[in-house]
């Protein structure tokens, strides 16, 4: 059976559609593959420019998967292809066993999506934004009204229920967008920089909520520029740069593989950092010179600092810390995550 799918065609037989989807989920989703999302050689071109270049990954159900990369790496483009809203230029993609290009509505009905840019309807009230969005999933008002109140509480926006979205602060809008993505109780949540613009308290609350969703079995796919967020939330991370995957693994494994145990940060003042860097050669395993400081990668920060002093150099400030994903990132891309 190969039905032709026509948007909004009143002749479209919903029963045939439902059963068809169920069949393909069974045959491809559970029997053939344990993954809820599979991308192989996924590519996206805008004209001559390749935004996503042949990337492959598989995400099992319940995993929390992070895409990390500098601005323009192709994270949002990847998310939009997974979300079934952007046509890929090459490769294969399957969400719950379905190709989003053929089964867009079926794929999207499984997802909750938090786009990088909020796109709430600012003319509608806060609560109505949630209800209207739920209607797109065919959900009845009898379900949506209590659900909207519950989500507002979740997003700590209950007092703002009757306000226009226009009157919310940036962080509140972000929280509302996140609440909106949960209206259909999605089993897969796509979060493109979910906490950008949130204050620290709201971020921690959101992490807590995401953690609970994860515990309940929700698959999370998220992009972030915050290393602590990635370390807290992600089971597995891929680092992307210029549309390619540079590395993949759990946060701890990535740090082990691409960085040393400790990092010594020394500052000599912005004019001198570069010149002093040469004199630091040989201390630790590796040094990295940034405009405002020099990073010395070593397993023993104290000893490295002693050695710096022994060479007659006295930094203005020095700091020994554990390696983080930030260092992995710097190592892999030569760039800082937050430009």
């Amino acid at each position, binding site marked *: 059976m190969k039905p032709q*799918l026509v*948007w*909004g065609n009143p002749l479209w037989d919903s029963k045939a559609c439902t059963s068809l989807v169920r069949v393909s989920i069974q045959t491809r989703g559970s029997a053939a593959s344990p993954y809820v999302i599979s991308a192989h050689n996924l590519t996206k071109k805008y004209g001559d420019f390749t935004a996503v270049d042949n990337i492959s990954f598989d995400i099992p159900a319940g995993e929390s998967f992070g895409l990390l990369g500098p601005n323009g790496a192709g994270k949002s483009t990847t998310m939009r292809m997974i979300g079934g809203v952007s046509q890929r230029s090459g490769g294969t993609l399957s969400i719950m066993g379905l190709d989003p290009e053929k089964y867009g509505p079926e794929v999207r009905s499984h997802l909750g999506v938090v786009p990088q840019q909020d*796109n709430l*309807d*600012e003319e509608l009230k806060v609560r109505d934004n949630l209800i209207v969005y739920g*209607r*797109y999933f065919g959900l009845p008002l009898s379900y949506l009204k209590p659900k909207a109140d519950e989500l507002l509480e979740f997003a700590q926006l209950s007092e703002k229920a009757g306000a226009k979205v226009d009157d919310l602060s940036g962080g509140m809008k972000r929280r509302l967008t996140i609440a909106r993505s949960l209206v259909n109780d999605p089993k897969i949540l796509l979060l493109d920089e979910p906490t950008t613009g949130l204050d620290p308290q709201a971020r921690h609350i959101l992490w807590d909520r995401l953690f609970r969703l994860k515990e309940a079995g929700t698959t999370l796919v998220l992009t972030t520029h915050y290393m602590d967020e990635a370390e807290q939330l992600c089971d597995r991370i891929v680092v992307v740069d210029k549309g390619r995957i540079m590395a993949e693994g759990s946060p701890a494994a990535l740090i082990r593989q691409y960085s040393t145990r400790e990092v010594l940060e020394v500052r000599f003042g912005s004019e001198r950092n570069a010149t002093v860097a040469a004199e630091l050669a040989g201390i630790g395993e590796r040094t990295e010179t940034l405009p405002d400081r020099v990073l010395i990668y070593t397993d023993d920060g104290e000893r490295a600092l002693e050695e710096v002093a022994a060479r007659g150099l006295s930094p203005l400030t020095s700091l020994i810390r554990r390696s983080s994903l930030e260092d992995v990132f710097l190592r892999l891309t030569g760039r800082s995550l937050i430009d």
Partner: protein
Amino acid sequence: MTSAPVPLTPAQSAAKARRLGSWYFAEHTLRVMRTYAASVLMYSVGTPLAYLFAMGVGLAALIDANGAGAFGGVDYLTFLAPALVASAAMMSATGEFMFPIMDGFKWRRTFFGPHASPLAPAQIAQGHIIGVTIRILVPTAIYFAIVVLFGAAPGPWAWVSIFTATLCALSFGLPLMAYVSTLTKDSGQFAAVQRFIVTPLFLFSGTFFPLATLPWFLQWIGWLSPLWHATELGRVLSYGYAEPAWLGAVHVLYMLATAVAGAVLSRRIFTRRMGA
């Protein structure tokens, strides 16, 4: 979270969205319109009153006193009313098919929210069209009712002009929607549409005087203008203005064809632009 479970499976949601998605988006459009419903209603009562008094009653008294024959044997108000109803519909359509489209794609990107849901871009386009059609039917019916109160719609079929006027709005509005959905920035196009298209159409579509009284080199405006076709039809329906049947068919077909072409193009442009 402890609430009732979602009453639909994802597959059921998708099936409903495939069938009814356009209506779901129309519902959204109408909810947004409800936020300015009061001003729409005030406008839809105020405009006809102002026009009918000023032009109809004031101007008509003057014109009718100086030889009524020019308007096919009916008084000027009766001649004018179908044109006013159709042009009011066309003008509300102009706004509704320009600004919300730009808002959806560009200003506040409101189309991209529903795009992440099971709705398809073509359904978003259709939903907007459905919503605006309903939004135009209401004030057009009000306008017509006020025309009736002024005694300027004598024929038994005059009410059908509510629908021909709405068709006029779509015939003009849907190609406009297709055009606006290709725009990536607003550099004065909206003002230009109002000034160089809507206003001339309003003035030269046989609105205030029969098209035939225009110099021949301006009459093509009428033939291209949905407003002229709707006005002529409105006159036939309202007071039995005599016109060959084939011309009536041309009026309807012209408006239908342009409306359908605009809708088909809009669907395509939405699909292409949102799927990039």
